[in-house]
């Protein structure tokens, strides 16, 4: 069997969402100032000017009493160098990360420094922000920092000399930022589920029997959830079963792949000891009932792949199963 001999099935999983972050008063003040090319800090109960300002003082829980303009130029407190930038980082070419203490502040902020080469980075070096054209985006309004000694890369929007010029306050206070989060994973399924999926690719339904309790799991799980032992013995199952329970879906929802209304049902395959959820088509939704006998309707063979090749279930026309025969599966 492929899944026991080789690796279990795995495939890419991408998660991506643009989070909308409401800022609240303190972060809004800071981000709005950034949009106006100003950097703010605030004095905490520890006596230090924190830049960026704290939202709530870690000792007192209080928000800042007032904001203090700092920088925007500052001094590198510590640094490192990135040869291969990762997705989402401020620069696409090699750059430095640094903790930068803005002039007039007692704490440092983290940002990228476009220094050209690691050899150009040094603790104590003076840097200034290179402002992005995209005002109001939050911390990314600062595209990166750059050495104060540099003339600035050619072609930079606004020119190098404009970096410390006032850009003017934006018309509106920034109250919300958008933070895209995109991550890539390699998702692996269990050996039992691999076997199930590979069998589906051949038009077969394969369950696995727990060696301890004898129950047949379809699809197999990593282990029998009752006994905590892997299920191994394969059981070939028919593609017929009963609807134990169901709901009629009338509402469109995110990710929906079928027009409403339709029936999502728990289908208990004959010979299996656990139901799975599937679609019931082939009859009006109001004719679906608990105990209805159903059979799988497979997708056209040319559409099969390693995965879910059953398109839906439809009534067989047989008499309904008696309630007592499936009551313990509800």
């Amino acid at each position, binding site marked *: 069997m492929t899944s026991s001999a080789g690796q279990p*099935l795995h*495939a890419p*999983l991408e*998660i991506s*969402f643009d*989070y*909308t*972050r*409401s*800022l*609240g008063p303190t*972060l809004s003040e800071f981000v709005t100032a950034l949009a106006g090319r100003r950097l703010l800090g605030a004095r905490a109960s520890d006596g230090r000017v924190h830049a960026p300002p*704290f*939202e*709530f003082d*870690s*000792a*007192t*829980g209080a928000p800042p009493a007032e904001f203090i303009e700092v920088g925007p130029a500052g001094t590198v407190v510590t640094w490192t160098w990135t040869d291969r930038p990762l997705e989402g980082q401020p620069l696409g070419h090699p750059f430095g990360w640094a903790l930068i203490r803005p002039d007039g502040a007692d704490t440092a902020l983290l940002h990228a420094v476009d220094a050209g080469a690691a050899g150009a980075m040094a603790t104590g070096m003076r840097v200034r922000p290179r402002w992005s054209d995209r005002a109001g985006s939050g911390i990314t309004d600062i595209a990166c920092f750059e050495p104060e000694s540099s003339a600035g890369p050619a072609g930079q929007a606004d020119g190098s000399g404009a970096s410390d010029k006032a850009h003017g306050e934006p018309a509106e206070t920034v*109250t*919300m930022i958008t*933070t895209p*989060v995109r991550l890539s994973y390699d*998702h692996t*399924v269990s050996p039992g*589920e691999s076997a199930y999926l590979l069998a589906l690719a051949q038009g077969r339904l394969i369950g696995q029997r727990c060696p301890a*309790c004898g*129950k*047949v*799991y379809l699809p197999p799980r990593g282990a*029998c*959830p*009752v006994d905590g032992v892997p299920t191994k013995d394969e059981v070939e199952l028919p593609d017929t079963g009963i609807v*134990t*329970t*169901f*709901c*009629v*879906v009338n*509402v469109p*929802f*995110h*990710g*929906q*792949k*079928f027009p409403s209304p339709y029936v*999502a*049902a728990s289908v208990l395959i004959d010979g299996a*000891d*656990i139901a*799975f*959820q*599937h*679609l019931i088509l082939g009859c009006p939704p109001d004719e679906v009932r*608990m105990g209805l006998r159903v059979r799988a309707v497979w997708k056209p063979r040319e559409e099969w792949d*390693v995965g*879910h090749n059953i398109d839906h279930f439809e009534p067989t026309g047989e008499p309904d199963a008696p*309630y007592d025969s499936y009551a313990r*599966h*509800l």
Partner: protein
Amino acid sequence: MKQRAAVLGTGQTHHRSKRADVSIAGLCREAVDRALADADVPADQIDAIVVGKAPDLFEGVMMPELYLADALGAVGKPLLRVHTAGSVGGATGVVAASLIQAGVHRRVLAVAFEKQSESNAMWALSITPPFSMPVLAGAGGYFAPHIRSYIRRSGAPNHIGAMVAAKDRRNGARNPYAHLRQADMTMEKVLASPMLWDPVRYDETCPSSDGACAVVLGDQAAAEASDQPVAWIRATSMRTEPTMFSGKDNVNPRAGADAAAALWEAAGITSPRDQIDAAEIYVPFSWCEPMWLENLGFAEPGQGWRMTEAGETEITGSLPVNPSGGVLSSNPIGASGLLRFAESAMQVTGKAGEHQVAGAKTALGHAYGGGSQYFSMWVVADTPD
């Protein structure tokens, strides 16, 4: 051995679909400030913080308690982060209580939150990993078939769910912090609302909320030193069973029944229906009220709906259920369980305002989550034993 523990104070946010006026830290801080003020405990007397919330993907922050350490006043202190799916707010209360019952700390702050408007909870829930069955029915689609099973098994009439929904929404109107406050809601209006996941109607489902809840817990000395009325924790209980397994009873899950049995025994309660004066039960879909009444042992199996139908669960009934309006009126997922626990404490301290159950002395807080998989609960009372 086990030390006594009590709720010294509670706080919660105004729950809304979007709390666009605050950051995540600001949302939490709003609840924390109210809880500290209610308990009359200064922040520097808090020994440890327990944070609960549901999946990190909802806000797009990995372990947000790390970033929140400063705003929560946790710097230099112990901080724990609990996550037990939808029951997490309840588990947060239980873990916070354990810190005191174990004799480790004197005063503990429990904070639970969800800021669902940062993303779309449905997005996070509907990520379909490769090879898995495509999402067929959305959120309600998981629970609606089990509700159908309950109706079939109990023979409950069609309108019970609507009665629960109307009651909880009307109760919500008595609660100044509730997200949905619908004083004029009726069973007829609920029945007339669109059928989303037959047998579940629109008005029978919980909203999606931004919100937070905080609870200050203390040991016996702290409780006795308090000028405020306190809610003594008589017992806590947690049970888990697998998400799905052959023979799982989705109508009356054994994990819930076992948790309740252990809870009543530990609290010295022999007849919950007679001895509990108010119950805050996790009811995200209206039909969960009769189901959980049975699961918790307030009614025999198949009979819970009769209590609802007879009006016993109204705020004026023999067992008021969700006088706060419950999850059906406010659902900041990670906080929803702790809200149930906090509201139960508010009832026995007489602090529930317009939704106060007259004379409540002993109350239940309950939460569940996952595929009816995780259960957590506590009993609080106005005296230590």
